[in-house]
């Protein structure tokens, strides 16, 4: 056992951190700066990080889930308003189905509550395409004998969502096309494994966003003055921020394990690792971001303060592929402690 990041992984983290520090939004106003957002988009394109899960030798992914999580964490910390999660999850679906790589920018289509992959029924394909900035297509599942096939549907426009950095789009359209090259349908185990990977990436994003929120709040506590001194010198403020930092550290350890598990453990165990991590990280992240809002006081409740942008990003990442309750249910079901209720309902 050695869970330190390798030197290559540290270099990847540093590069991702530099990218968002250079081109990510530094203020709420900068979210509307289309030129900056386009530069961030182009820069991320140049790194190739959206292709980390495309097949390299054989059908192995180009990079591990840990590497994908490292990038996701830094993008979350920097509130990156460019697509990463969607394309990465779509690439992973194509890899599992041995389908040819996407020919256009692609994301995944989820159910309207965002808790899982959309499954097309009859001749319509409906759901919510996530993380759609610069995206023109989304992958969904279609039931078939012995499993699920992939189908691609076009994505147009965006619909308003809670997250200001990663827009979504409602999709409700005509039949979709099967991506070429898919050799065999996706099995339940494939989808479990994909879900484990997807959930672990949402955890990494949560950890990053939490870190960013704590940094923002600590900076503010260091300059905001009341009673003739900085509010960061008050023990009540210090203890809130200390608790927030502690939550980030615990979340980081459990999220890192979920990412490792996604590539290493059998699908069922990987999904359990992801569920445990998501329950912990999502519960922590909301509280941490609420703390960031609180430490900013009145300013924290205004649109211009970045604290709510972190909170909103966390609220979306929590919802994506299952919220706290959904994952706690998984923990309960796997250990068969739901008793007469079978779960927490």
């Amino acid at each position, binding site marked *: *056992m050695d869970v*330190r990041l390798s030197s290559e992984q540290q270099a990847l983290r540093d590069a991702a951190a530099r990218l968002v520090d250079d081109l990510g939004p530094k203020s709420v106003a900068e979210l509307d700066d289309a030129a900056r957002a386009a530069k961030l988009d182009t820069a991320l394109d140049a790194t190739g990080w959206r292709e980390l899960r495309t097949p390299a030798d054989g059908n192995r992914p180009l990079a591990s889930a840990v590497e994908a999580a490292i990038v996701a964490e830094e993008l979350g910390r920097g509130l990156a308003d460019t697509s990463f999660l969607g394309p990465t999850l779509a690439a992973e679906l194509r890899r599992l189905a041995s389908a040819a790589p996407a020919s256009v920018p692609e994301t995944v289509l989820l159910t309207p509550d965002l808790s899982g992959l959309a499954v097309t029924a009859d001749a319509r394909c409906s759901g919510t395409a996530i993380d759609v900035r610069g995206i023109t297509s989304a992958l969904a599942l279609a039931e078939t004998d012995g499993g699920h096939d992939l189908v691609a549907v076009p994505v147009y426009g965006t619909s308003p969502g809670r997250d200001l950095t990663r827009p979504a789009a409602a999709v409700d359209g005509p039949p979709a096309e099967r991506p070429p090259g898919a050799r065999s349908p996706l099995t339940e185990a494939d989808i479990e494994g994909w879900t484990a990977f997807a959930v672990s990436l949402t955890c990494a994003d949560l950890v990053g966003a939490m870190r960013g929120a704590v940094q923002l709040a600590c900076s503010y506590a260091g300059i905001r003055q009341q009673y003739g001194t900085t509010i960061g010198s008050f*023990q009540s403020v210090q203890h809130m921020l*200390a608790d927030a930092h502690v939550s980030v*550290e615990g979340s*980081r350890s*459990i999220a890192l394990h979920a990412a*490792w598990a996604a590539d290493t453990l059998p699908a069922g165990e990987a999904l359990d690792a992801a569920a445990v991590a998501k329950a912990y990280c999502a519960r922590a992240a909301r509280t941490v971001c609420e703390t960031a809002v609180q430490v900013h006081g009145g300013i924290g409740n205004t649109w211009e303060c970045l604290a709510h942008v972190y909170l909103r990003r966390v609220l979306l990442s929590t919802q994506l592929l299952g919220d706290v309750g959904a994952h706690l249910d998984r923990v309960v079901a796997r250990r068969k*402690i739901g008793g*007469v209720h079978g779960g927490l309902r």
Partner: protein
Amino acid sequence: MDFADSPEEAAFRRRLRTWLTENNPGLPASSTSDEYWDGQAPWHQALYDAGFFALSWPEEIGGQGLPSVYEAIVDEELASAGAPPRPSLGYLVQGILRHGDDDVRRRFLPGIVNGRDRWCQGFSEPDAGSDLASLRTRAERRGDEYVISGHKVWTSYSDSAAWCLVLARTDQEAPKHRGLSAFAVPMDQPGIEQRPLKMINGITREFGEVVFDGAVARAADMIGKPGEGWRLAMTVVSHEREPGELGYVARYGKAVNELVERLRAEPERFSTENVRDVAWAIVEAEMLRLHVCRRLSDRLDGVSHGPEGSVDKLLMTAVEQAVGHAALGVSERTAGTKEDTWLKMYLYSRAQSVMGGTSQIQRNLVATRILGLPAS
């Protein structure tokens, strides 16, 4: 980045697992029964003699000089076998190792490590809790000896200890942090009276208070130099905060497994809220297991013990108290038939946010030493 065992680690894990099938003493949790304390010394010695304790400590003092990550394997296997956790004495060992001279280390450490010599730690006093440096126990030089007078409290294992690591004031004139020195004091002498402290859950064997009234320590048994007591105390308490040093992952893992079994045995007895509390205890305990893997891996770089110990103490406390709340729920639904160990486990969990430095103090340290906020 790999959570999996290396071939050597896997072989070690198999040996330990096999050994545990025949050598698990099946003691009750330390937090629920005094019976645990009768079994602690034999358990420590058996674990050590079989080669499963003191893994990462230096060979000179009886350790095996292995990477710290082996301790994480021990904790996981102890938990899944339902065996008692490894003895929590790393903080004493680290304090003496870092601050004692060669003679002191040679004389004291092997016996602590192999479990033949039982030790307790006399730091806190009735009027010196969080503000430890204000302690008033005095040690006065008299020839080759020091004569010690004062009152120590929260002295873990004082009833069974042969030695006490005592922090006392040797220089009344020096500033309060500078006038302290540390001593190894034999407990079996006329100038020492110890009595048990009864905790809110009824256990009496873990903590004691010790009155020193003209107790004698040899000058040669001072640990570190005169005035070095505060630095030694900081070494000790910083390790006392670390779940990886304390082996508490095994404690929580075992407790969580027992809660899961209890729920499975009589599902109709428990509410959704009980199930939810146990689920959170599972999640919290798993977080700590993985967090300790990360911290112990960091030590492969030789990372020293800094303020991160306060982060870990707060995480560990959250776990213990989540497990405590789950135990309380089970207690409420099963009380009345026999001794209520679940209630005891819950009540004991309240001490975790106090012992080894209160959560308030840990938060101060995280805020000022890690987040860089100004001291208040």
